[in-house]
């Protein structure tokens, strides 16, 4: 970790596709994986580049944007306020499902709990009250039940299908 107490330390991150990112320390420390990298390598030089072999540049840029905003919210005591909700809503508005998935996998690898929570909730919101067929299409699931098997499973979970209109 930074021992000299510089005003602003920069952490260098290198993605799978070879891009170098310069991230302010407090933002980079939101990534559990980066934090533990420096915890384990206390002597790491200030210009050490942390390799992120499972993350590519596009989702990383998105994650940095998210974490940066949230670090600032916390610093300003805005955590949990409407401002944050507004930012979050804005943040995901333009994201496609494919982008969301990339973000989830990257946030999972980087181990950013708060963001992962937010992203999975976003997906859940996109699925809320949707039909079985819709969910199948959403996840690209092939139905491999025979009609008899499907009937048997439906019976077992009968209560969950009552009053549901199939479309």
């Amino acid at each position, binding site marked *: 970790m930074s021992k000299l107490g510089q005003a602003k330390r920069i952490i260098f991150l290198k993605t799978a596709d070879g891009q170098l990112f310069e991230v302010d320390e407090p933002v980079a420390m939101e990534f559990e994986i980066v934090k533990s990298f420096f915890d384990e390598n206390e002597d790491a030089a200030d210009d050490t580049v942390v390799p992120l072999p499972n993350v590519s540049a596009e989702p990383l840029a998105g994650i940095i944007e998210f974490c940066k905003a949230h670090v600032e919210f916390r610093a300003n005591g805005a955590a949990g306020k409407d401002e944050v909700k507004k930012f979050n809503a804005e943040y995901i508005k333009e994201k496609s499902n494919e982008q969301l998935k990339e973000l989830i996998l990257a946030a999972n690898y980087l181990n950013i709990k708060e963001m992962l929570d937010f992203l*999975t909730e976003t*997906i859940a919101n996109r699925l809320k009250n949707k039909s079985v067929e819709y969910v199948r*299409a959403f996840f690209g699931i092939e139905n491999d039940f025979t009609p008899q098997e499907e009937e048997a499973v439906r019976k077992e979970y009968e209560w969950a299908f009552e009053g549901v209109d199939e479309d």
Partner: protein
Amino acid sequence: MGVDRISYLPPFIIHQIMSHLSRKQVAQTSILSKKWNYLLASFPIFNFDETDLFQSEFDILAAEKDVKELDITIKTDDKRLYIFPHIIYSAKLLTTLRLNGFKFEKPPDTIRFFFLKKLELVRVHISETVVEKLTSECVLLEELYFRRCWGLKCVCICKPDELKILQIHIAPSELERVKVDILGLQQLDLVLYQRLCEIDVSGCSQLKDLRLACCLFCDEEFHYLLSQFPLLENLSVSSCFVIKRIKISSDRLKNLSIGYCSDLEAIDVDTPNLLSFGYEYNSVPLSSMNAPCPWKVRLVIEHDLDTNWYLKLKKFLASEIKELTLRCTLNEVSFDLEEFRNGSPSPPCKVGYVSLSPTILSSDYGALLDALLWICYPKCLVVETWNNDHINLIEVQSSYH
């Protein structure tokens, strides 16, 4: 939706998504596909609350003193299980009891189900103490089923001596240990979902019927388990996703069925007295087969088909097949007859019934059918088609009967 899809997320992320949905919608994911059904079964969030909606109905029930069979299903969401009413313990003449959607609290000091022969618990929350009490005081019990039950870290069934059929299907991520020690047990069904669950069934050496489903055994664990049942006559293995190789050698085995084991690569079966063999929804294995009985084979093929695949299929099928069903999805077929003949010069095998339901391009469809007929002569061929392109390709010239 177009192409904007999400696929292949790791299971715990899917669980995390589920945790943001209503119980009802989560339960609906059960019918998405087999894999999702499995994901749901391993979804560990439950909590309970009480209601006394039905108290008066139970009082009336119990008043019927000589009721012999009782089957009660409480249709609730899994998080609001009904507390098992003590009044039911007073139905002393019960022989069959089936409960769905209950939570067992502390039982009375003595349970008077003296005549109970069959107890089936479905979606029941139960503790080790209650299981211990039920099994030691229902001395005539012959059949005991735990289906999708919770609350047990350890399932230990050592009584009663009369028990013949036992099914254990406990919610995952809870179960740590299964111990069954009943010499006369005939049939054991295990649905475990769980890695690292200690299983001790060495006391059941007379077992005849073993059914494993969703047991995540590795090859060694699976074969060790089998080795403890020398008298086994019926074996069914399904949805055991981790097993890669199966080796079975037995003079006694009569019925064998292997299904939905997606990672299965090789089987070695030496069962001279087998009466039926089912091999369904697995891939074509590397095989060594001595199973002279009718087979029922169902293959789902999701990859492209090359000559090697056909060679592997022919080697596997070289026996008496009653029924062969192929379900293909979007495959390319590349079949080289010369190479195939060099690899396997023997004539095609005879098959009773072949059914094909491919969704492949019509250009590959003819090739698939052609190649298949180099492997087997079907007595009956069923071909599903849904456009004229497919039909035009089929021109049958058969001299074989």
